[in-house]
């Protein structure tokens, strides 16, 4: 039983107990209503004005209705008209508006003078930022300035950031934290299909017979979608298979929990393909018409060195060569490596192979935050391509996202070093399109990508980057091997600007802190995991001098002399920016819905063609962009998707006699990412007040560790002491530990490893070697 830190608020504890129960009930019984309780606490006789918005938190993009009274957001409920969540709402969404009213909200710009933060006016702060950027460019060149944003950037935020840095200043030093969570999904899509983002949509959940969750704790991280799956299970005979390295709430709610040794998902996926071929379950007609086979380089490294470079060399192979390669991945061989029984490997393969079962694969950080993340994405697609289970209702490989606009902003607007809103900087045609729409000389746009996220912070450490503007993200909690990058940011000669809504470990390293307007305190759009773009209006005034990230960037751009490109009017700038942006995506393959449609409806799924969303891409039954009957993977020049030969390779750092355990990090349902918002929601903070280290009960027994005991974790990067958790929320496999990263007072990333996938450059937060000791 948990011993509360509260001593004087018994009624508060009672309410917390009630909310825990309501959350559990909502997970088990989707659509469950407790009307009396939901109305309690709302102002009586008030004139609540309910307005629609996409939720501010995860990438699911639930539609919520926000209740506004007297200029304040006072309530939230799931929007029953939303096709995403059909009225459901998770515990974070339900409390989301409370995050706007924390006592320590930043309301005034702060400038560091003589080591102390001094309040200033917004005008002075923006003047300083613009002059510092100009001075840095003059002294060190344009590649000495950078911006680091986020999948929480609205579409207009990311768009103006890219336009200013890539189009006007002429540097590709634009990155976003989605590099840390979704980059492997992007490179997976690009290598397999030539186009980013899932081909299906959430409606697949209503048609699938089997759900295979690849390292994805959906019950905690995507609870509304998980509820939709459980709802289907209550109506139909469906199966949920949880394939993971740790037993979680998802495992407990699944029909089958299968635990595997970290990193061996690569081998398991290949073993499933082996079984599909061996048993004659290949959809030969589909593969012959719509697929190619390729292999790439192997032993590709881990990116641990500064200035690490890698470029794959794809080479076409035959089906027979691929079949031969898979002989190394028989269920018997893979069972020894992965710890998964031969029976379980065959069990999963049999569902994928059964032509009468529709299968949905879902994944998120387990597959993406992986030193072979691109390969893992390819391997899941291989299974669906071999069986032809793709691009039709219920047959769907589905990569989930963690942030509200990781797709809409980072991936579609393209706020990564190599990207443009349409295409990539390396492509002359794409640069010409961007230059025309941005009204800049094409020579302004550099054809060379500069730094991906880890390398950008390494460049800050080396001094290659002198100026960094960080918006709506908290890298001083999330960067792997954090200490190096925290020390880097504090070095002499670096100038850091941070735009945020609360003080965080990242504002601690800032020279200028700008108070930002949050979510419905400004107008904007997000794009979710199913290619759905959703609009929200400004519903309340931001506090003090807080300003949207979009307008902060516009003000600085004007001060730097780019008035012509940043012509937008304050009262209409979001509409003007959106209308400018959607010119990039005109056409049947990526057309975006007009703003008036987004204002009226609960979003629209691109490609939006002839007034309709496209729910399933690449299938001529649903997708008007196809040019032939059946399937057309038009991201590739020949319309064929690629089945990749990708081997198992070990993790960058594996347990040994000095560091004998695996360290895995992740999230909890109560907190969103670094907790800078959810830890200011009292009920969520009190429900999960601090981080902990989960141990396997047998390991804990052997070391005589019980819940609450202090445990020291030591890696080659450093050490940290935190309380133990045994047999509580999650149960790691033997010789593994798990730590959530939401707690800024226990920075687990001080001891993680900054290895990354050489193709996507996404770090692996799930695997490094650690020593575990009772203190």
């Amino acid at each position: 039983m948990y011993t509360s830190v509260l001593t004087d608020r018994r009624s508060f504890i009672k309410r917390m107990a009630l909310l825990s129960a309501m959350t559990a009930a909502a997970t088990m019984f989707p659509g469950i209503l407790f009307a009396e309780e939901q109305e309690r606490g709302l102002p009586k006789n008030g004139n609540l004005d309910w307005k629609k918005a996409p939720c501010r938190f995860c990438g699911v993009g639930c539609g919520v209705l926000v209740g506004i009274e007297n200029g304040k957001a006072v309530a939230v409920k799931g929007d029953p008209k939303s096709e995403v969540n059909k009225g459901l709402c998770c515990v974070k969404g339900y409390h989301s508006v409370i995050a706007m009213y924390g006592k320590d909200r930043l309301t005034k710009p702060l400038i560091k003078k003589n080591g102390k933060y001094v309040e200033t006016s917004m005008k002075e702060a923006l003047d300083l930022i613009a002059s510092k950027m100009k001075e840095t460019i003059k002294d060190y060149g344009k590649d000495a300035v950078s911006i680091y944003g986020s999948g929480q950037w609205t579409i207009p935020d990311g768009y103006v950031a890219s336009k200013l840095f890539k189009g006007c200043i002429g540097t590709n030093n634009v990155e976003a934290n989605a590099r840390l969570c979704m980059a492997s999904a992007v490179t997976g899509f690009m290598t397999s299909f030539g186009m980013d983002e899932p081909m299906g949509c959430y409606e697949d959940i209503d048609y699938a017979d089997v759900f295979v969750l690849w390292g994805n704790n959906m019950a905690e991280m995507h609870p509304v979608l998980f509820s939709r799956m459980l709802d289907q299970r209550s109506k139909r005979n469906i199966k949920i298979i949880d394939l993971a390295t740790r037993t979680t709430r998802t495992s407990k709610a699944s029909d089958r929990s299968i635990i595997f040794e970290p990193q061996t998902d690569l081998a398991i996926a290949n073993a499933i393909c082996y079984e599909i071929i061996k048993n004659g379950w290949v959809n030969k007609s589909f593969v012959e018409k719509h697929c190619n086979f390729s292999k790439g380089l192997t032993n590709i490294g881990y990116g641990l060195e500064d200035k690490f470079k890698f470029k794959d060399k794809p080479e076409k192979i035959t089906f027979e060569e691929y079949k031969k390669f898979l002989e190394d991945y028989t269920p018997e061989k893979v069972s020894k490596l992965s710890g998964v029984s031969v029976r379980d490997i065959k069990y999963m393969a049999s569902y994928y192979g059964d032509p009468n079962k529709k299968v949905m694969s879902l994944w998120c950080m387990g597959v993406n935050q992986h030193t072979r993340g691109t390969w893992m994405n390819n391997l899941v697609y291989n299974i669906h391509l071999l069986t032809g289970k793709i691009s039709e209702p219920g047959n769907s490989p589905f990569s989930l996202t963690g942030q509200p606009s990781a797709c809409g902003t980072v991936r579609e607007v393209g706020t990564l070093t190599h990207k443009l809103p349409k295409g990539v900087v390396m492509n002359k045609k794409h640069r010409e399109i961007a230059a025309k729409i941005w009204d800049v000389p094409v020579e302004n746009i550099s054809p060379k990508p500069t730094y991906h996220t880890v390398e950008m912070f390494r460049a800050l450490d080396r001094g290659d980057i002198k100026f960094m503007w960080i918006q709506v993200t908290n890298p001083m909690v999330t960067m792997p091997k954090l200490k190096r990058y925290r020390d880097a940011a504090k070095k002499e000669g670096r100038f850091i600007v941070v735009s945020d809504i609360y003080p965080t470990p990242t504002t601690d390293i800032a020279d200028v802190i700008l108070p930002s307007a949050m979510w419905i305190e400004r107008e904007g759009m997000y794009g979710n995991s199913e290619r759905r773009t959703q609009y929200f209006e400004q519903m309340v005034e931001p506090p003090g001098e807080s300003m949207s990230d979009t307008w902060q960037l516009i003000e600085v751009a004007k001060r730097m002399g780019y008035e012509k490109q940043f012509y937008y009017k304050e009262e209409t700038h979001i509409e003007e920016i959106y209308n400018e942006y959607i010119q990039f995506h005109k056409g049947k393959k990526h057309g975006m819905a007009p703003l008036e449609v987004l204002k009226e409806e609960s979003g629209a799924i691109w490609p939006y063609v002839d007034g309709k969303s496209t729910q399933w891409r690449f299938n001529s039954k649903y997708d008007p962009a196809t040019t032939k009957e059946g399937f057309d993977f038009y991201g590739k020049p020949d319309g064929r998707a690629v089945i990749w030969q990708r081997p198992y390779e070990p993790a960058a750092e594996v347990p040994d006699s000095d560091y004998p355990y695996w360290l895995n990090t992740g999230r909890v349902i109560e907190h969103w990412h670094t907790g800078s918002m959810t830890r200011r929601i009292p009920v969520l903070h009190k429900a999960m007040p601090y981080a902990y280290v989960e141990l396997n009960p047998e390991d804990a027994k052997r070391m005589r560790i019980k819940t609450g005991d202090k445990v020291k974790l030591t890696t080659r990067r450093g050490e940290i002491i935190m309380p133990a958790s045994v047999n509580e929320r999650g149960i790691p496999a033997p010789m593994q530990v798990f730590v959530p990263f939401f707690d800024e007072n226990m920075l687990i990333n001080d001891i993680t490893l900054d290895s990354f996938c050489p193709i996507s450059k996404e770090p692996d937060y799930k695997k490094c070697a650690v020593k575990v000791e009772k203190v």
Partner: protein
Amino acid sequence: MPIKSYLAHPHKDKKDELFKALSSIEQCEVIPAENKDLLILITDTQNNFEEDTLKEKLETITSLKLLAMVSGFNTPKNT
């Protein structure tokens, strides 16, 4: 002392009966779901003796099919 929350599952067609039975116990607060056969039960007891007595009472309720604990908190009874 303990505050606990449970999901209370009634036997078939016994939701109202279960609601009445639980509501009649002093230490219980009950919130029925509007559209599903489920009730949320919050219990609030002063000490272990009272907790044990409550447990015995709950076990005698015939309309109760299953009581699944969701959360438990120890907190001094001071406000």
